[in-house]
């Protein structure tokens, strides 16, 4: 059993080791090792496009996760008291949003927005006062955030709803019997119970958006997210700079994890 687990961990980490190894390559290629060097780490850190792509990804991931969590939680709460056709419609929408592959969402959003913008922009330009250049709708932050948030929101609704379903209703009734306002009941009774679900939804949404390549590939317009940057670097011919970026992200996360684990262990031993 232990040996089996070890084999799986090796499978998981050998490619990571290869990535890390070539990050220290002195040569320009990511597959022929030509000596040891740390130059690519410096290059990655001083590359303005890497940093900007990182910021774009962070912004999009944060905005879409916040919006999706907010709208999704609100919808999940409201759906408790909704029945009939409206509820069936929402159930169907959630189902479809989770199930339609990302690539179809990306393509459908692209062609729909391009079509809409092609009609909207001239109208806007015509309506814009004083002959100055009117702002143009185009793909970018907006389309990225909304397209990423769509799947996330469906996810949040599902998670929060499951949480609400598992909630102890007698507490709400008790709170109301004791004369709490609906808002008070929500804040003091409902929210604490569903909060783990909201948090899980938020974290999943953030991760999903931060990692997504397929949807962003179609709807990013002129914006470059980190996965898109990595994709175009690979097409440009991989230099170890990409390995350096990947290695740094991993190293930072690993160090944080191991420290956290260590602190927990120590805390437990003392207790």
């Amino acid at each position, binding site marked *: 059993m232990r040996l089996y687990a070890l084999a799986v961990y090796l499978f998981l980490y050998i490619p990571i080791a290869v990535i890390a190894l070539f990050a220290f390559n002195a040569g320009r290629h990511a597959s022929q090792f030509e000596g040891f060097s740390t130059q690519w780490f410096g290059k990655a850190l001083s590359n303005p496009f890497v940093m900007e792509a990182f910021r774009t990804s962070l912004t999009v991931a944060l905005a879409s996760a916040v919006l999706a969590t907010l709208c999704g939680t609100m919808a999940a709460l409201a759906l408790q008291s909704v029945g009939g056709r409206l509820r069936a419609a929402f159930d169907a929408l959630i189902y479809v949003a989770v199930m339609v592959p990302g690539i179809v969402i990306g393509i459908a959003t692209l062609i729909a927005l391009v079509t809409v*913008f092609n009609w909207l922009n001239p109208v806007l330009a015509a*309506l*814009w006062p*004083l002959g100055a*250049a009117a702002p143009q709708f185009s793909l970018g932050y907006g389309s990225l955030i909304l397209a990423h948030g769509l799947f996330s929101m469906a996810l949040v609704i599902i998670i929060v709803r499951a949480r609400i379903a598992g909630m102890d209703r007698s507490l709400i009734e008790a709170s109301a019997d004791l004369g709490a306002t609906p808002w008070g009941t929500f804040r003091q009774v409902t929210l604490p119970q569903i909060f783990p679900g909201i948090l899980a939804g938020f974290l999943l949404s953030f991760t999903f958006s931060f990692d997504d390549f397929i949807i962003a590939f179609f709807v990013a*317009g*002129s914006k470059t997210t980190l996965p898109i940057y990595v994709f175009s670097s690979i*097409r440009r011919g991989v230099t170890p700079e990409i390995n350096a970026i990947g290695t740094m992200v991993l190293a930072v996360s690993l160090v944080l994890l191991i420290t956290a684990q260590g602190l927990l262990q120590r805390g437990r031993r003392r207790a």
Partner: protein
Amino acid sequence: MTDRKDTISRKDFLAELERYRKGSVTRRHFLGVTGLGLATTVLGAAVPGLMPRRAHAEGSIGDRVVLASWPNYHDPANFEAFKAKTGAAVDMSVFGSNEEMLAKLQAGGTGWDVFVPTNYTISTYVDLGLIEPIDLSKLPNYDPASFDARFAEPGTINGTVYAVPRNWGTTGYVVNTSQLGALAKPTSWKEFWDMTKAEFSGRTMVHDYQLTTIGNALKYYGYSFNSVDPKELTDAEKLLMEVKPHLFAINSDYQPSMRSGDAWMSVAWTGDAKQLHRDMPEIEYVLGKEGGELWSDFFAIPKGAPHRDAAYALLDFLLTPEVNAKEVAFHGYPVADKRVNAILPAEMLNDPIMYPAAELLDPLEFGAAVTLTDPGRAELMARFKAA
């Protein structure tokens, strides 16, 4: 079209909008006819915050320029030098076919400032209104007179310059001669495809690019590289479908696989062949004796390029003979600029990969505009990839 009505039907409105969108009526006309003019004036006066404010940064070209180009095509050192000189960093993305670039531009919002289209595509870009005329006054280092007209002409459409020449080249194939065994070095497209089906099965690559992949399959039968004849395309499709299971990969960036030894033969462009041969002499370049493609690449500026000043600065920089000569030393494609050739080392100017013998060049064809938009070729390529 001067009679003004107070109201306009929905249908007329949409018709006018469509005409306005296509640019056949002016904004003033559109606003007048549709009655939106009054509304906008009132709105504009009532809500001062709607007035656009535009910030102009004069003098500086900004901190970046976005370039769309091809694999293994630019010396990174030149981009570093450009950044050191102007402060603008070059953000490059790489494409494997003209069709891919066209698809991106058609979908809109690319954010590109400069891209590198091939000769046969430029008239289509102009027809579709996707690129803008080049302002030659902003390119003091570009000297049209020093260019070989054959490679510069396709950039001029109806007397207007829409693209300036970068370099030219041929499309042949590279073969790793150490894997030939008892086989003689191939010299034709017929041998390329036949070897792929036999001795080199599983080791050959073709471009993810309809022009060269279909074009050179057409050459197997001796048809024109540019054919859009349905019968000839059917023959080419038959060959490609037969060959598909024997291919190593369909990819326009074949250098990594050729270098690692995974692939032994690939459809290739001059410069890639030169770069591979330089590092691994056993990899040789073959121009099929039946013919194939002769091409010329250009720089063009898409409509609405967000950093236009930086785009011109980059073009002017790359067209400076000294810089261009460094590019050539890196990428190994010949240029049509006499000023550059004057400073290139003699061994480069006599290089048989860069400057093939006349009898090999003569049968080559320039790509034809029709191949870019012909649905028959596009669908054939898509079917071939999906097979």
